[in-house]
């Protein structure tokens, strides 16, 4: 009897927990969902409920070369950041995961520093440097600066992938006669691929979403977040809502793709 009462008590607690979490999930999702009706509004300012349906804010985005240029620049910077962060991060992760040398722990801890240092501080520091070097407004300058921010995430993801990695598989491949390149291509890379995809996704998103650094060093050649920020500050019209809604759809698609790509590789040696 007593046990049953407790059981029922736990059930009530469980229901309460679900209810509270439902509210919190609504708090997390509602702001994102609200952008969709606003983006299809026929009104000329942020008004809820929208007075009618129209695609004019989407049309305005696609017709305005400054929006398209900013999007193109952000994609370019994001792609360059991803490539750079992987080119630098993959060797670094291998060195840290498999090497035993003095200062290894120091480098491993130090690599996370750009996460802890406030972005505003790093931004003005890089801004000071870039304005002396005349790099303000250059897309590759933004990409290099974004690489500093993306590198810690790339290394953390790759390191955790490499630490779970069974190196005897590589030894087996080499023992069976594979050369170092063949072994890397047929064993190391397929097993590590899910971590590399995650790292690439993180690096791209870090750059594509980044505002504070870009605000200082992009000059007149705005990235998409900078263009959105200026638009939010200067005019109250739903073009930004349309851009945001498209970004949310894109991110959801990428997350689904990511779940599919990162499904565990079960038999990497059987091809």
């Amino acid at each position: 009897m007593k046990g049953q009462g407790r059981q029922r008590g736990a059930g009530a607690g469980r229901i309460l927990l679900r209810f509270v979490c439902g509210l919190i999930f609504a708090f997390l999702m509602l702001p994102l969902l609200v952008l969709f009706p606003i983006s299809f509004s026929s009104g000329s300012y942020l008004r809820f409920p929208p007075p009618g349906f129209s695609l004019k804010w989407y049309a305005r985005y696609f017709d305005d070369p400054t929006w398209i240029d900013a999007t193109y620049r952000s994609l370019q910077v994001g792609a360059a950041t991803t490539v750079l962060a992987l080119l630098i991060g993959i060797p670094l992760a291998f060195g840290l995961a498999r090497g035993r040398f003095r200062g290894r722990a120091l480098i491993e801890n130090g690599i996370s520093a750009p996460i802890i240092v406030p972005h505003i501080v790093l931004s003005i520091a890089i801004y000071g440097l870039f304005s002396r070097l005349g790099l303000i407004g250059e897309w590759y300058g933004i990409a290099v600066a974004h690489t500093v921010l993306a590198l810690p995430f790339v290394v953390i993801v790759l390191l955790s992938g490499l630490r779970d990695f069974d190196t005897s598989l590589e030894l087996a491949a080499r023992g069976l006669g594979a050369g170092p390149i063949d072994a890397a291509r047929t064993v190391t890379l397929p097993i590590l691929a899910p971590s590399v995809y995650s790292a690439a996704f993180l690096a791209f998103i870090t750059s594509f979403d980044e505002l504070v650094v870009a605000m200082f060093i992009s000059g007149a050649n705005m990235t998409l977040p900078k263009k959105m920020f200026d638009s939010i500050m200067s005019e109250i019209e739903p073009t930004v809502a349309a851009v945001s809604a498209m970004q949310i759809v894109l991110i959801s698609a990428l997350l689904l793709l990511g779940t599919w790509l990162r499904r565990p590789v079960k038999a990497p040696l059987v091809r």
Partner: protein
Amino acid sequence: MTLAATTPAVASRSWLRPGPFALTLPALLLLTLLFILPLLRLFSLSFAGGGFGWYEKALTGGLYTAILYRTFEIAGIVTFFSLMIGYPVAFLLATTTPIWHAIGFAFVMLPLWTSVLVRTYAWMVLLGRNGIINRVLIDSGLLDTPLSLLNSRLAVILGMVHVMLPFMILPIYSALTRIDPDLPKAARGLGASAARIFTTIYLPLTLRGIIAGVMLVFVVSLGFYITPALLGGGKVMMFAMVIEQQVREFLAWNFAGALSVILLAVTLMMFWLLNKGVARHLRD
């Protein structure tokens, strides 16, 4: 024969570590040029003109220390609420059925991956004079005139909690999944109350996750710029906004350098203190 075939592989074990330190060089070069040197330059700028003059300006006179204090206060409030509402979500995610786990996780990850700017803008839409919250309150007859919810501390805190919540949920969730599910079951079987199970099993075993989440949320909140700039509408000043203003409006590099060093110093100090707390807890 077999032995001969395996020998080269064993001998080439060093191939697995191809000059490990050399592999870190590109990263070290990048971080030196674009992280350490710019920060050192900023540091030296803050001492330009000799002595601590710029620091004196920042730390006396009250204005900037008041903003620093307010920044701490807001970061503290954001951290507190993130923990209070993050823990139940992490608990639900760690203990629910696989399907609800997947759905709940999507609800946490989608906002996390959506840019801070988009989420902040969404809050402007929600809280604006013609926003949903005012519309609902007026339509239901609770209000006659719209509330000015935007450009307030409340708006800044709501927006920041929304941005920071996933960073609190994830480390606590990961600590919860490492708890042996037999432990709470055994405690319940031995007659422990739900509150007792929480304080003697869940709380101590997730303390590491809690501290990691608190550290991340608090430290990142201290340096926040986008959300307070947009939702505070210039009325809620946080420290990062002062630094931005000094550089962009007044080109006061030396003073901005001093303010940056102060922000960096308090950030690192908080990080160190919380880390020390974790270390002490783990030793006990």
